[in-house]
C-alpha cells in the first residue's frame, strides 16, 4: 500500500507528509511534524500511525516535534511475509534505528499496546535520549498476561496454527472486527476510522503481524520473549523517568485495575492513572482529551 493509494476520506484525516527511513533493511514510514522536543507516538497491533491523528495538531501547536512511526509490518511501512522476520528484539532495534537515524534527543515516548514493549525496550537501552514516558493500555512484564490472553475463546483460538492465517489473514478479522469490538463509540468508529485500518492491510500476506504479535505474548516460562519482558520489568522498577499513565475506563483487555495499577507500582512517580472513555483503542474515543493530558504533563516535565 502506497501512501498515495490511501482513499480521500483517509487523506482528509491524515494530511501529513510521508517520510521513509531504512531500518535494519526494512522501509519504515513515519510522520514528522512540528518543531521542538520530540514526542514519539507508538502504535501496536493491528493499527498504524492513524491511531494518533488527533494528537498531531495539539502537540505541534504546544511546541513539540511529533514523530509517528508505523511499525515494520503495519501501516505504510514495509510488511515482511515470513513469521521469522518478526521478533520483539527486532522491532525494538527497528525503532532504535529510526530514533538514532533522526538523532532524536529529549524524547517523550507515547506507548500503546505493542508500542509499550518496543518503546520501553528502546527507552531502557537508550536512556540518554529519553525525557519522559506516556503509557496506555500496554504492559511490560513477563507473567501473568491478562486473563483474557489465557482463554481459548477467543484469544488463543484466534491466532492458533492455521486458524490465525485463516481468520486474521484471509478475513482480516483483527483490523476489521477486532478493533471495532475494542472501541466504545462503534458507530463513530465505523463512519470515520475503520476503513483506514483495513485499507493498509489489503491482502492476506500483508496481515502477517496481526497474528504473529499475539504469539509473542509470554504465556509460560518457555516463551520466546520471556527474558526480554523480565528485563523490561527490572528496568521499569529502576526507572526514574517522569511518566504519565492514561487508561480506558472500559478497557476489558488491559483492565486498568490490574495493568495501570501495576505500572503505578513499578513507576510510583508516574502521574495518573487518568481514566478516559475508551476500551483498548482508547485513542479512538478520547484522542483530543489524551493529547491535552500529554501537553499538560509535558509542561511540568523538566
Amino acid at each position, binding site marked *: 500500500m502506497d501512501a498515495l493509494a490511501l482513499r480521500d476520506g483517509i487523506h482528509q484525516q491524515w494530511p501529513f507528509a510521508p517520510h521513509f527511513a531504512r531500518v535494519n533493511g526494512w522501509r519504515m514510514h513515519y510522520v514528522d511534524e512540528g518543531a521542538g522536543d520530540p514526542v514519539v507516538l507508538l502504535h501496536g497491533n493491528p493499527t498504524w500511525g492513524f491511531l494518533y491523528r488527533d494528537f498531531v495538531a495539539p502537540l505541534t501547536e504546544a511546541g513539540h516535534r511529533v514523530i509517528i512511526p508505523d511499525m515494520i509490518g503495519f501501516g505504510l511501512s514495509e510488511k515482511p511475509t515470513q513469521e521469522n522476520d518478526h521478533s520483539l528484539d527486532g522491532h525494538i532495534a527497528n525503532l532504535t534505528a529510526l530514533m538514532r537515524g533522526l538523532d532524536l534527543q529529549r524524547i517523550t515516548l507515547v506507548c500503546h499496546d505493542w508500542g509499550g514493549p518496543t518503546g520501553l525496550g528502546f527507552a531502557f537501552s537508550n536512556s540518554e535520549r529519553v525525557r519522559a514516558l506516556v503509557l496506555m493500555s500496554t504492559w511490560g512484564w513477563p507473567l501473568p498476561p491478562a486473563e483474557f490472553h489465557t482463554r481459548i*475463546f477467543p484469544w488463543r*483460538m484466534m491466532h*492458533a496454527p*492455521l486458524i490465525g*492465517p485463516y481468520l486474521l489473514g484471509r478475513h482480516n478479522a483483527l483490523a476489521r*472486527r477486532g478493533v471495532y469490538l475494542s472501541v466504545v463509540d462503534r458507530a463513530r468508529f465505523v463512519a470515520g476510522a475503520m476503513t483506514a485500518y483495513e485499507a493498509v492491510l489489503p491482502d492476506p500476506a500483508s496481515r502477517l503481524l496481526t497474528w504473529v504479535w499475539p504469539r509473542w505474548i509470554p504465556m509460560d516460562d518457555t516463551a520466546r520473549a520471556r527474558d526480554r519482558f523480565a528485563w523490561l520489568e527490572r528496568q521499569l522498577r529502576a526507572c526514574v523517568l517522569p511518566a504519565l499513565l492514561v487508561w480506558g475506563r472500559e478497557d476489558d483487555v488491559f483492565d486498568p485495575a490490574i495493568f495501570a495499577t501495576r505500572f503505578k507500582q513499578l513507576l510510583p512517580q508516574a502521574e495518573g492513572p487518568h481514566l478516559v472513555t475508551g476500551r483498548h483503542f482508547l485513542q479512538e474515543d478520547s484522542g483530543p482529551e489524551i493529547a491535552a493530558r500529554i501537553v499538560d504533563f509535558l509542561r511540568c516535565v523538566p
Partner: protein
Amino acid sequence: MRLARVLAEDWLGHYPEFRDFFVRSFDLDRVGLARPGWLRAPSGAAYALIFIGRSGEPFPSGVEIHAVVPALEPLDEAQVDRDLWAILQWVVAGVGGVWTVEALQATGQLFRIAVAVQQSGD
C-alpha cells in the same frame, strides 16, 4: 491440474499439539518430506498439505494448504473458504484437549466469518 496455495502456516510449533496432530495424521516421522498429505474436503475438492522443514526446529515447522484445481481454471474462492473452514474444524477436532470445534465456531462467529455464521444458523 495445478496446485494453488490457499493458506500457509509458518510456525506450527506455536502450539506444539497442532504439530503433533499432523505428525500423527500423516505419519510424518516416517514419511518426512517424501510426499504431501492429501485431504478431500466435504465439497469433494482435493487439497495437498505441503509440510515445511526448518533447520533447528522440530519437523514440520510449517504447512501450506494447496487446492488441487484444473490447470487453467480460476479458483472458486467461496468454495475454498468453506473447505478451509471444514479443514480447520477437522484439525481442531483432531488436536483435541482444550481445543474444541465449539470454540472455533464461536470464534468464527465473533469475527463474523460468513461460513461460521451460516453454520450457526443451520
